[in-house]
């Protein structure tokens, strides 16, 4: 635009245009003349480096050059060079339009650039342009201190700005950047306003003012407006954390204690004079909370070792002390709480941070172990997060975790929860409770996160799915009742899934400085005890299905969802006992494209993948096919073929735990006709001395019936109102169990029974 150029620039541009026009006219006349034509005259290009400019600091500047030539524009080459001023880097210096970033000058400064245009014959011309960089300070802006306001009142937002240029050229823009949206009036003026929304308690709004000066420089400032239901109240906010002791080198590492947020727990604001609860809320995932408190009141904060949530998902978890107030029912024993000290709520805002200390003071626990219940709680919180990651609407049945500094790993077979003699950490399905060891310098679990997660896994299996586990003592290298193997293998695997690391650890001993650990990634492929009856085999299969780390036989990654879905559906509902086989059958059916990878995992553990929920095709017999296979003997009611022989053995159970492989044998009873049936069991190899005592129980998911009379060498019982479908029976020689009669001595350590079912 003409108005954008100076008179001298207009003259320069006009002259160049005129020369081009004259040259073109002369050359054009030569084409039609006769005689010897004079050699064509090559004129240098006409070049224009653009108009002089004024620019701000630190902006991209374009040098807009043009040129023409009698040989045509295509024959022109361009070269931009800087001839004055702070050196800049030119981009596109060999084109008509070069760019650079204006330097961050301390005062106004003029840069000069020359554009040289050269035609194909080498004739050249140049032109110069000046770019003045203006030293311009961005505006300053202030919106004032954060403020508290009363609900339903008009609130002014006032910005003040300064600039080194004419402030009349400043522009303003208010925007809301947090909180319930409000309508801003005069959002493009220095002073805007809005109406504080109605609120219950307190609500946080945040606004930003952006001021821009004439050269485009901007500045911003933010303000937080806290809207109170009652402006005379104050706010109390802060964070709650607990000291966590990490695991390293088979021990708890007290030198590396770290702070972790208390997540999801209930926090209460309590009147310190009356002990009335003023308000209650839930800590968020950062451990943060906010209360509106009555002004100038003596209050204190209490954090309860509980997780409470209603709706979907929902949960109800409490951590209690089983060894205090023992005259109370277990569920009414003291719940752990973390209490702060009283303070004056004052006026305005108070920030109150609480910390639950581990109680470790260098060499031992000498102070209250306040972190412990919250560490237990946090592991359970993580566990529930794993579930809600695949089922956001999961509803968790109530769970109590009992932890006490007196909970000791006593031996002797007696459990007395009131005095802490719990023997080990365990889950009790009938009580919906975890019991966790807590005796320092012996065995305490609060920071043994995988142990807590393992026991929570039993709770999950029992309440979301179904557990037919026998319970009892178990080790990775043992051959177990396959129901126990599945339950424990799942517990180990899910502990690693919950904690996000495959290393299971359980510290024990003096100063928790040693213990027991293993990796879920160690599939035990050298173990002679691997198989469908081994918890390490089960955990290896489950964890490798879950994890994304391919190794050895593991080339599949399915995550937690299939495990969850199968456990809460097929595994929970089927007639077969909860061994690995119903899981395998369902997994292969749900993921046909992954059957080869799944079978590779199973094959590495000597488990036959191509199987039904009863493991009918299994061939792995732990060297004792006579007492191990088939996993289920089939006893068809009224079978003309006569009784079926089934053998119980104690060969894998030298300690008479009753939960090792083939102590309890399985029988499948396919019922085709509804009615009442009689189960007859007769010892087929009565011992030479002593007596056999067969006992048996029948299930279809739930308990159906059974018999455990002390009658020698036989057992008979009725099953009434059976309906068509499969029933399963567990059958064992009672003298093989601790507490039973003296163990009988049998050839090949087996006692066998003829089993029949008649209508």
């Amino acid at each position, binding site marked *: 635009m003409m108005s954008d150029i100076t008179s001298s620039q207009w003259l320069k541009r006009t002259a160049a245009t005129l020369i081009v026009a004259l040259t073109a006219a002369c050359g054009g006349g030569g084409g039609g003349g006769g005689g010897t034509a004079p050699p064509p005259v090559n004129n240098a290009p006409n070049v224009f480096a653009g108009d002089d400019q004024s620019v701000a600091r630190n902006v991209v500047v374009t040098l807009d050059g043009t040129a023409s030539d009698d040989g045509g524009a295509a024959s022109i080459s361009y070269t931009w060079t800087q001839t004055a001023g702070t050196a800049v880097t030119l981009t596109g210096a060999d084109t008509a339009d070069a760019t650079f970033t204006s330097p961050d000058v301390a005062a106004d400064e003029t840069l000069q650039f020359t554009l040289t245009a050269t035609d194909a014959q080498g004739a050249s011309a140049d032109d110069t342009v000046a770019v003045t960089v203006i030293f311009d300070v961005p505006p300053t802006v202030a919106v004032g201190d954060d403020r508290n306001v009363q609900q339903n009142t008009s609130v002014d937002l006032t910005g003040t700005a300064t600039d080194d240029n004419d402030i009349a050229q400043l522009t303003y823009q208010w925007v809301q950047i947090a909180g319930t949206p409000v309508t801003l009036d005069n959002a493009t003026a220095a002073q805007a306003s809005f109406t504080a929304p109605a609120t219950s308690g307190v609500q946080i709004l945040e606004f930003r003012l952006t001021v821009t000066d004439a050269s485009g420089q901007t500045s911003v400032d933010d303000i937080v407006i806290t809207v109170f239901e009652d402006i005379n109240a104050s706010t109390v906010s802060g964070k709650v954390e607990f000291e966590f002791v990490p695991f390293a080198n*088979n021990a708890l590492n007290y030198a590396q204690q770290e702070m972790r947020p208390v997540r999801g727990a209930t926090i209460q604001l309590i009147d310190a004079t009356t002990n009335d609860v003023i308000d209650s809320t839930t800590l968020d995932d950062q451990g943060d909370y906010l209360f509106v408190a009555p002004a100038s009141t003596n209050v204190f904060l209490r954090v309860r070792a509980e997780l409470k949530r209603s709706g979907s998902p929902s949960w109800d978890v409490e951590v209690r002390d089983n060894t205090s107030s023992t005259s109370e029912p277990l569920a009414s024993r*003291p719940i752990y709480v973390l209490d702060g*000290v009283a303070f004056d709520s004052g006026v305005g805002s108070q920030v109150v*941070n609480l910390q639950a200390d581990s109680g470790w003071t260098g060499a031992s626990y000498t102070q209250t172990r306040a972190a412990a219940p919250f560490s237990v709680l946090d592991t359970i919180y993580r566990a529930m997060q794993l579930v809600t990651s695949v089922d956001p609407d999961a509803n968790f049945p109530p769970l109590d975790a009992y932890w006490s500094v007196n909970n000791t790993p006593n031996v002797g077979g007696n459990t007395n929860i009131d005095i802490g003699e719990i023997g080990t950490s365990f889950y009790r399905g009938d009580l919906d409770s975890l*019991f966790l060891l807590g005796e320092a310098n012996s065995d305490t679990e609060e920071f043994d996160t995988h142990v807590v997660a393992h026991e929570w896994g039993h709770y999950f299996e029992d309440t979301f799915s179904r557990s037919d586990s026998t319970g009892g003592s178990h080790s990775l290298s043992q051959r177990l009742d396959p129901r126990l193997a599945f339950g424990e293998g799942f517990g180990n695997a899910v502990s690693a899934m919950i904690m996000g690391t495959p290393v299971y650890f359980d510290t024990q001993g003096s100063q928790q400085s040693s213990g027991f650990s293993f990796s879920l990634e160690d599939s035990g492929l050298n173990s002679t005890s691997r198989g469908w009856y081994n918890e390490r085999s089960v955990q290896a299969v489950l964890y490798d299905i879950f994890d994304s780390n391919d190794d050895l036989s593991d080339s599949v990654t399915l995550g937690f969802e299939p495990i969850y879905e199968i456990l809460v559906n097929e595994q929970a509902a089927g007639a077969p006992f909860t061994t690995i086989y119903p899981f395998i059958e369902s997994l292969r059916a749900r993921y046909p494209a992954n059957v080869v990878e799944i079978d590779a995992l199973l094959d590495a553990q000597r488990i036959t993948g191509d199987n039904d929920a009863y493991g009918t095709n299994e061939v792995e017999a732990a060297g004792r096919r006579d007492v191990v296979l088939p996993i289920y003997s089939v006893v068809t009611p009224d079978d003309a073929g006569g009784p079926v022989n089934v053998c119980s053995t104690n060969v894998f159970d030298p300690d008479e735990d*009753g939960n090792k492989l083939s102590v309890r044998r399985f029988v499948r009873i396919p019922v085709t006709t509804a009615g009442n049936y009689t189960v007859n069991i007769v010892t087929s190899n009565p011992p030479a001395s002593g007596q056999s005592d067969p006992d048996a129980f029948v299930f279809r998911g739930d308990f159906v019936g059974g018999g455990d009379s002390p009658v020698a060498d036989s057992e008979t019982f009725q099953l009434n109102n059976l309906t068509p479908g499969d029933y399963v029976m567990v059958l064992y020689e009672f003298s093989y169990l601790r507490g039973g009669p003296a163990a009988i001595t049998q050839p090949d350590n087996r006692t066998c029974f003829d089993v029949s079912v008649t209508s």
Partner: protein
Amino acid sequence: MNKFQFSIVLMIGSGLLSGCSESLPPAPEQSLAEAKIAARTVSEASIGKPTVPVVVDYAFLNTPTVDQPLQIRMSVSGRDVSNLTMAMSTRGELALSKNTPASMPLKMGATTGAAEAVDTYVTPSAEGRSYVNVQISGLYENQPFTKAISIPVQVGAGGPVLEKNGEIIDTGVEILSSMPASQQVSKGEQ
């Protein structure tokens, strides 16, 4: 959920938890009927954590009496374990014999998986229930492990001295174990 709804007292239900025995004073005898019930259990059974297959059997060779040394004979057996050592400490009104080493190796039988019996002496200083804490360390499947157990020692009447982990507060509605917090207070914006 499979609920095998038999009524089981905790003492019985935990019978599967440990392979250990106590000879003096005698453990409450489990009747045959109780054992039958315990054997029935399925989902109600205590479902415990993984452990190392080490079993500690012990016997009191004399009756625990105040100010009288109590001889405890312990035998340790295990499978897939080696290089076992034993360390002991006490909780409650018990003192270990001054001759008790901080840690002692356990000599394992060649084939039985059982170690030679170890005798130790503790002296009760008061009636009540105290504990000998035993720590077995070694290798399990060639990996280091430690397994801790405690042996209850009952002297006369009375229970153990139980520690509190917080102040017990009865609000009238519920009972709390109140633990002190470390607290930081700062003034925010007015």
